[in-house]
């Protein structure tokens, strides 16, 4: 039996949305892998920014502009410290993981030649597939697949046989959003580096649950979105090793990313500014900084241990339901459970759960290749966060039981 953690009760006070009533029931929010909820600390940081500091940043001589620039740059430094990057110039603020990955894929257009190879894992989110497909079409580089196994883990033996001297970039998520499995990215990077291939790690689902250390991983690129780690929408980051960021051409053209502009010739600014064209999401960056402070205050020791309990509790109970099939049901996971119940359509199950006030995600989770692998067209995905309780787990499991009974 799992005892309710007393800290969680206090933590929940930070999240006004968790008191929301849906269809007569208190909401049980289990769609955290799609987006996490936002604590008052972050909401207030954003409001205060607009109430006291709002100004366009960089190159402004006036007070507010300086203050806004300092806040913006402070977030860059907070991210650097949080993921243990060497230099803050290695942190690019983007509008999210999708933008980060597109920026890198676009940059490789000038580097790749026909005959070069890219390796994508079968577990990827569309955000880490489509930009590379577009790149592959433009450059003639071949897109090869790092296949998954039945249990949801990656097949490293196949990976070794796909890797070769022509491999230029490997892109793998740190944690799969559809299954929650933590991938052996350090090993994947080590193997790729033997062939001098760059590795991009999509950390969108990892950063909410684990401490990331890009230096220890030796990742060439690492991405995440603030909205998955208690931060605001419209802001995210790209970590890139200095050598790589200097090598890649800029992505978008505009203000702030230039050095000199004439109609004949334009020269670009240094990193990180080269990649930050236009007015950035300044308030979003302020919120992102507040979110990093917030999760560090909660602490990853607590997050990891509480989430592990939630996952175990939910998995243990779900497994007992007749016809239950959990995809990627292994130990090494973040608290994400993707499942189906025999003869029940995931959409129906999600709809009934919603009527009970239980928010889960249903469908393909932007991972059609995984669905194709399992020969299904979707799953129900319950994803937990550190502010979820064991009582919510119980109500969720009861909800599933009740819904299945209605639907069968």
């Amino acid at each position, binding site marked *: 039996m799992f005892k309710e953690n007393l800290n969680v009760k206090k933590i929940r006070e930070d999240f006004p949305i968790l008191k929301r009533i849906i269809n007569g029931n208190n909401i049980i929010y289990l769609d955290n892998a799609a987006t996490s909820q936002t604590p008052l600390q972050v909401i207030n940081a954003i409001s205060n920014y607009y109430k006291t500091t709002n100004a366009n940043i960089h190159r402004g001589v006036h007070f507010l502009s300086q203050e806004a620039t300092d806040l913006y740059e402070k977030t860059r430094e907070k991210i650097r410290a949080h993921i243990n990057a060497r230099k803050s110039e290695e942190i690019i603020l983007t509008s999210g993981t999708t933008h980060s990955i597109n920026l890198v894929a676009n940059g490789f257009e000038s580097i790749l030649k026909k005959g070069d190879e890219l390796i994508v894992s079968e577990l990827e989110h569309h955000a880490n597939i489509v930009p590379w497909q577009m790149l592959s079409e433009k450059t003639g580089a071949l897109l090869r697949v790092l296949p998954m196994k039945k249990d949801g883990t990656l097949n490293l033996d196949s990976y070794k046989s796909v890797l070769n001297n022509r491999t230029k970039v490997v892109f793998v998520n740190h944690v799969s959003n559809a299954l929650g499995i933590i991938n052996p990215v350090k090993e994947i990077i080590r193997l790729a580096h033997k062939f001098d291939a760059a590795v991009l790690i999509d950390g969108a689902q990892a950063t909410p649950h684990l401490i990331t250390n890009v230096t220890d991983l030796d990742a060439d690129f690492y991405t995440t979105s603030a909205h998955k780690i208690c931060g605001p929408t419209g802001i995210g980051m790209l970590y890139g090793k200095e050598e790589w960021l200097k090598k890649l051409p800029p992505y978008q053209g505009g203000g702030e990313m230039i050095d000199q502009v004439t109609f004949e010739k334009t020269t670009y600014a240094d990193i990180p500014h080269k990649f930050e064209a236009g007015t950035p999401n300044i308030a979003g960056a302020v919120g992102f900084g507040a979110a990093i402070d917030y999760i560090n205050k909660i602490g990853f020791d607590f997050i990891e241990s509480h989430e592990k309990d939630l996952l175990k509790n939910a998995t243990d109970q779900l497994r007992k339901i007749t016809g239950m099939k959990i995809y990627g049901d292994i130990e090494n996971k973040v608290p994400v459970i993707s499942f189906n119940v025999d003869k029940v*359509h995931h*959409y*129906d199950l999600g709809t*009934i759960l919603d*009527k009970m006030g239980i928010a889960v995600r*249903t469908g393909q989770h932007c991972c059609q290749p995984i669905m194709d692998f399992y020969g299904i*067209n979707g799953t129900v995905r319950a994803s937990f966060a550190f502010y979820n309780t064991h009582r919510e787990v119980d109500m969720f499991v009861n909800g599933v039981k009740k819904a299945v009974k*209605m*639907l069968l």
Partner: protein
Amino acid sequence: MSIRQKQDEIVSEFALFDDWMQKYEYMIELGKSLPLISENNKTDDNIIKGCQSKVWLHAELIKEKINFTADSDAIITKGIIAILLRVFSGHHPKEIIESDTEFIDKIGLKEHLSPSRANGLGSMIKQLKMYAIAYQTKLS
């Protein structure tokens, strides 16, 4: 019965339900019991792209009235389809064109028709109306 009358009838039926449970149990029952479309009309051509639950819709003009048949792989979607077909099938294109779907709102299932809903029902109604317009042109 006119489309309007059928709609009113359904609204009164649904008024009897005390809560969402009863309502959804009823829809699930409808979804389970109705044979909706013949297998050879369940073609890819007849598929309406919703994201999660597939919807097939087939239309035929029989004596100036449109006969709709449809299906879905999700049971709740199927239940709502049953209600929609009961209302719209067997009517003259003109009547279908002039009708609305406000009754869905009245029986508390409005969210299912939202264009952002991942069940294809919103698109199904659009498609249903498109058939009516197409056949109307043919008739006139």
